[in-house]
């Protein structure tokens, strides 16, 4: 016979085996990335942690009590996995990109890395899961009791220990195992390969055990047909008319939500997923696993109902039927199977929850009170301690729930309470993945509202069996308010309590979420995260630059990262980044992308919100160093200076361009002048050349010219060539003067003496033309700077002009000099015809002559131009001024040297 001691020893040995398996699985997974542990089959089997002792024991009981309803618990997840392409694939991809560690992390990350939301989710999850843990404790306890109670000496060392004591023992043992299993180290991605391996092994064990029991039952029952016939004969009906009512819909919906939102399911399906392609296999293999699990549940249930003594607990049929037929080995296998399903669930659930608690509640507290910065030993140890503490807390809660509700006997209803609680996350998760406008405040309010309704309508009533107050509440409502009765809210009576609770909580939840999102607006970070989540398949890049480059040095960052991830992993990260950037690790400048990556790595260990807070403290925290500020200011200054320089340069360029344009215009004018000059020169040269040519031709060909004629011709040729030479000399002189090529010596001279000399030279001309010179007043001796010969040339030119162009009968030249305002002035006027107003400006140009005089005068018209150039070289000016006589008056104006 089986004794309780033996069974317990077997269980302990089994857990020992699991531990060994987990240990080696861990080592194998670490050393070899491509081991069988990374196969899609292990992944699928680990997902089957969904089938807990609720399935193993509870489903049989459920089938015995409510017929086919138990199937919905497996059909709902089947639908979710069949549609994996839409929901699960998206969830896995996002979680990989964002290093999501838990459901709370997912929601907080999506809704602006809000830690408050993460805390809310964590608290609700811990409370909501308590009944579920209690269910496992109850199942294990009952199974031990069932085995022990089957024989008179079976109780062994359990004598005198009641259910509660046993459950406490089980809970304590489970806590110990979970701590040993799950919290040996903090992994960067929160993947526990060893645990997953153990879970997969347990999945095989429980399936094998249930199949064995099922086949045994079918065998002794005489086949499926016989069993159902016997059951029908005994009055057991499975296809009741009322199977497919509101409850069917409710449980289906709740199980769909649960397969996504249960912390342990999220952990194995999403977090522990190492390859998205594994989901492909799991999408049909996991439903197939569930189908196999449920295949024999109905036969076991109806067989048990028909054959087992009345009053026996239908939850324990899988165990008690083999015992009743004396199959102790099979019973032991069944026990191990049930134990397997319970342990795997408890281990994973508490690991998942402990990650949530430590990342979202304990870490933020540590960060807030800053003990981490003082604790040089690192956050890792603290984190592990926090997780261990959370595991104990979670199992304690489960135990207390078990303690208070120990009198209710069915397993499945307890589990459904949990499902309903956990389902409150489902609307927010769906909104997080598919609705861009869902806001943080709306999601928080929705989850909180749903939780309140669930707590009131589902959680509280479960204590009815131990608390008379709760019973009173159920019957009359709080303070006698009938419409607030937990199982008949707002007068909605007659509905199944579970459907009632699910309806109210989920409706309120969805309504709050939708209306809240429409009323509130998102923060910038939320919008950013929303687009990261919704566009996960569109953009391949993960969100990075949430941080502006503040004062973070690689050193500061390393210090932070090292404390969380440990020395080696942090060093590896920084070295990789330095290698990518191509710089020495010590000189690494953290780029925003790198900080973004560090944040995700940290998020893998401590959650998105905590990681964000932690890095924010370093990166954009209050302590932007003074040097940094100075440098930033400097950089601004430099930028301003640079732009100013640019402005200046461009102004210079503008003025240069303008100058160039002016020069260009001038050049074009000069070019025009040159052309004009050339045509004038050729014109001037042509006249004497023509006469020279014609006279020389006559001399050559006409032999009959007399000597006198000949002499006349030759003298004309001589005169013309003299004129030509003079013209050419003048042109050369002018061009030399204009270009300033000729050496020019300025010396102090007396302009009066130059004037006297010029008059002396012109004496003959004056007398020949019978011109009288009138002297005006004279300035007396003065000193100007200039060349005496050149100045004399100017005067001669002016006097000869005055003589040449004067055609009056009694020609007069008036000469006067004076000193005025530092200048020495010489006026030479005549009583000739004067210069027409239109020509006044032109007479100083080359080759221009007065219109009247042009015809018969021999000058080339260069005299005034040359004179003006000469005076200019002496820093003076030659102008036409108002004349005291009827004719023209030229004034030479030279600056007087200060003596």
């Amino acid at each position, binding site marked *: 016979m089986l004794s309780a001691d033996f069974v317990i020893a077997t269980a302990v040995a089994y857990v020992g085996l699991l531990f060994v398996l987990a240990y080696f699985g861990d080592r194998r997974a670490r050393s070899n990335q491509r081991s069988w542990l990374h196969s899609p089959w292990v992944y699928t089997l680990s997902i089957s942690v969904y089938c807990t002792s609720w399935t193993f024991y509870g489903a049989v009981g459920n089938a015995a009590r409510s017929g086919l309803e138990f*199937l919905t618990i497996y*059909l709902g997840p089947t639908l979710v996995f069949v549609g994996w392409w839409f929901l699960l694939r998206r969830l896995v991809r996002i979680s990989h990109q964002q290093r999501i560690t838990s459901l709370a992390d997912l929601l907080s990350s999506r809704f602006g890395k809000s830690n408050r939301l993460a805390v809310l989710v964590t608290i609700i999850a811990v409370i909501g899961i308590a009944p579920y843990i209690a269910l496992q404790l109850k199942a294990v306890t009952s199974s031990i009791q069932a085995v022990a109670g089957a024989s008179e000496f079976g109780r062994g060392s359990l004598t005198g220990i009641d259910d509660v004591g046993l459950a406490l023992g089980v809970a304590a043992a489970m806590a110990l195992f979970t701590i040993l299993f799950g919290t040996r180290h903090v992994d960067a991605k929160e993947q526990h390969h060893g645990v997953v391996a153990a879970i997969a092994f347990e999945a095989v064990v429980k399936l094998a055990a249930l199949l064995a029991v099922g086949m045994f039952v079918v065998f002794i029952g005489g086949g499926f047909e016989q069993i159902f016939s016997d059951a029908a004969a005994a009055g057991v009906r*499975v296809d009741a008319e009322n199977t497919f009512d509101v409850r069917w819909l409710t449980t289906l919906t709740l199980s769909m939500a649960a397969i996504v939102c249960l912390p342990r399911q999220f952990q194995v399906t999403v977090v522990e997923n190492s390859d998205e392609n594994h989901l492909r296999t799991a999408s049909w293999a996991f439903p*197939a696993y569930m189908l196999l699990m449920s295949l024999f549940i*109905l036969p076991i249930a109806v067989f048990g109902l028909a054959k087992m003594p009345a009053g026996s607990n239908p939850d324990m049929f899988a165990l008690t039927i083999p015992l009743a037929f004396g199959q102790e080995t099979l019973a032991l296998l069944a026990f191990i199977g049930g134990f397997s399903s319970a342990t795997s669930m408890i281990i994973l659930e508490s690991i998942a929850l402990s990650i949530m608690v430590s990342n979202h509640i304990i870490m933020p507290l540590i960060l807030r009170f800053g003990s981490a910065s003082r604790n040089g030993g690192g956050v890792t140890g603290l984190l592990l301690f926090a997780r261990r503490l959370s595991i104990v807390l979670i199992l304690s809660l489960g135990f207390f729930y078990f303690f208070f509700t120990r009198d209710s006997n069915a397993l499945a209803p307890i589990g459904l309470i949990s499902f309903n609680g956990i389902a409150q996350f489902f609307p927010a998760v769906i909104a997080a993945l598919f609705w861009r406008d869902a806001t943080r405040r709306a999601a928080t309010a929705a989850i909180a509202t749903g939780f309140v309704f669930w707590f009131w309508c589902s959680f509280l009533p479960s204590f009815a069996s131990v608390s008379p107050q709760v019973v009173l509440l159920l019957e009359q409502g709080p303070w006698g308010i009938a419409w607030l009765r937990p199982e008949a809210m707002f007068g909605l009576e007659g509905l199944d309590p579970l459907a009632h609770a699910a309806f109210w909580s989920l409706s309120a939840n969805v309504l709050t979420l939708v209306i809240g999102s429409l009323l509130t607006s998102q923060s910038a970070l939320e919008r950013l995260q929303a687009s990261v989540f919704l566009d996960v398949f569109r953009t391949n890049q993960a969100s990075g630059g949430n941080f502006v480059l503040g004062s973070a040095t690689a050193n500061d960052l390393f210090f932070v990262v090292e404390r969380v991830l440990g020395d080696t992993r942090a060093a590896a990260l920084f070295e990789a980044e330095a290698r990518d950037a191509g710089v020495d690790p010590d000189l690494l400048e953290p780029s925003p992308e790198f900080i973004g*990556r560090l944040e995700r790595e940290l998020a893998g260990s401590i959650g998105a919100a905590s990681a964000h807070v932690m890095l924010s403290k370093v990166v954009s925290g209050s302590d932007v160093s003074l040097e940094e500020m100075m440098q930033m200011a400097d950089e601004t200054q430099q930028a301003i200076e640079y732009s100013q320089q640019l402005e200046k340069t461009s102004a210079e360029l503008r003025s240069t361009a303008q100058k160039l344009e002016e020069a260009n215009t001038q050049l074009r004018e000069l070019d025009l002048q040159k052309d004009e000059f050339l045509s004038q020169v050729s014109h001037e040269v042509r006249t004497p050349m023509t006469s020279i040519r014609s006279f020389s031709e006559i001399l050559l060909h006409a032999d009959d010219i007399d000597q006198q004629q000949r002499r006349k011709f030759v003298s004309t040729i001589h005169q013309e060539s003299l004129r030509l030479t003079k013209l050419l000399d003048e042109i050369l002189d002018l061009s030399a003067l204009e270009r300033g090529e000729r050496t020019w010596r300025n010396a102090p001279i007396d302009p009066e003496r130059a004037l006297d000399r010029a008059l002396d030279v012109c004496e003959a001309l004056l007398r020949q033309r019978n011109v009288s010179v009138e002297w005006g007043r004279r300035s007396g001796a003065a000193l100007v700077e200039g060349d005496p010969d050149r100045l004399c040339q100017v005067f001669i030119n002016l006097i000869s002009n005055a003589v040449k162009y004067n055609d009056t009968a009694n020609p007069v030249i008036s000469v006067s000099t004076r000193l005025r305002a530092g200048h020495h002035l010489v006026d030479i006027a005549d009583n000739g015809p004067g210069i027409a107003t239109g020509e006044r400006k032109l007479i100083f140009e080359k080759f221009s002559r007065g219109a009247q005089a042009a015809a018969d005068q021999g000058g080339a018209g260069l005299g005034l131009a040359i004179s003006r150039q000469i005076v200019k070289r002496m820093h003076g000016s030659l102008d036409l001024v108002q004349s005291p006589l009827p004719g023209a008056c030229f004034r030479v104006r030279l600056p007087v040297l200060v003596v």
Partner: protein
Amino acid sequence: MLVLTLLGALLMLPPLVLVFNQPLRHWGLPQTVLYLFALWLVLIAGTALLNRFLPPEPAGSDSEAD
């Protein structure tokens, strides 16, 4: 895939499921039970089949690479 999922959901919910909820027996088993398990099998097989036609994920899509 969407069609299969929605069809599965429709077929296992009232009112369609009620069509098969008759107190009939085939090979000694209640028709409802047979119907639900058959539907379940069809969903599993359909998913396995459909997955062959879906484009595979890029190998090693694990974000270790980023």
